[in-house]
């Protein structure tokens, strides 16, 4: 059947990816848990101490300096040094460390669950019989998971800002990438509806004599 080879290759790749991602997620959770249990609660030597790091951008009230450009040998390109960018470092046992642990734990669970659903879709599908009701549910679930991931990221952004802003000057915000998985999630929800219609048509076709 046409496309069978591509389908088989993708199925194997997804299977391998699932195990790699599951292993990495497990490792990250174990390391974070160890850091939480054994880590220090006081920030002493940031060069050697295991800390949780957050990329943040400060918003100072003073006028910003003109951009510093570093020219290379190219005439039409230059490096611009970013201003007011910081890494906020906190110990693993601080409130920010616990916050980071919870976010990591949720992320690991979400990634493994999503990859698991994707793996199941490929396991239960074949080009001979591509439409199955359970796969429509799985596609919808992955879509909802992606939307939920962005929602959690957004909520986390507000929690982080509330946790840090009273204690630091200048005022800064966490740099987060919100929006991409929301659109992907919406796309998957639409695809799930189309797929479900495909399942209905397929079932009707099976009952056509």
């Amino acid at each position: 059947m046409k496309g069978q080879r591509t389908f088989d290759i993708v199925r194997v790749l997804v299977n391998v990816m699932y195990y790699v991602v599951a292993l990495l997620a497990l490792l990250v959770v174990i390391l974070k848990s160890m850091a939480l249990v054994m880590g220090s609660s006081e920030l002493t030597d940031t060069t050697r101490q295991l800390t949780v790091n957050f990329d943040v951008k400060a918003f100072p009230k003073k006028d910003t300096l003109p951009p510093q450009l570093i020219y290379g040998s190219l005439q039409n390109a230059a490096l611009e040094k970013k201003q007011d960018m910081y890494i906020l470092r906190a110990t693993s046992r601080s409130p920010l460390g616990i916050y980071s642990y919870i976010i990591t734990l949720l992320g690991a669970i979400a990634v493994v669950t999503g990859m698991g659903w994707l793996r199941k879709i490929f396991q239960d599908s074949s080009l001979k019989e591509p439409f199955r009701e359970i796969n429509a549910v799985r596609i919808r679930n992955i879509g909802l998971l992606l939307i939920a991931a962005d929602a959690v990221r957004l909520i986390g952004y507000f929690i982080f800002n509330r946790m840090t802003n009273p204690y630091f000057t200048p005022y800064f915000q966490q740099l987060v990438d919100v929006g991409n998985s929301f659109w992907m999630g919406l796309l998957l929800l639409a695809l799930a509806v189309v797929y479900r219609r495909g399942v209905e048509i397929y079932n009707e076709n099976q009952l056509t004599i």
Partner: protein
Amino acid sequence: MPIIVNLDVMLAKRKMQLTELSDRMGITLSNLSILKTGKAKAIRFSSLELICEILECQPGDILEFVPEKGPKQSDGD
């Protein structure tokens, strides 16, 4: 569905087994059973033509419209 399939009646009239009809039509027995038990959603003209040809009957002998008594129900189509 208000369309009744009278295939079993016609088979009895012609003293023919479902397996024989399935063999002569070249359709699997399970598919023909779906039609006989009224579970089928649709029937192709080509299948109807074969049934009529083998059983020497008209489409009306196989399919019958019986209006439903209660309020009309949608089956999701």
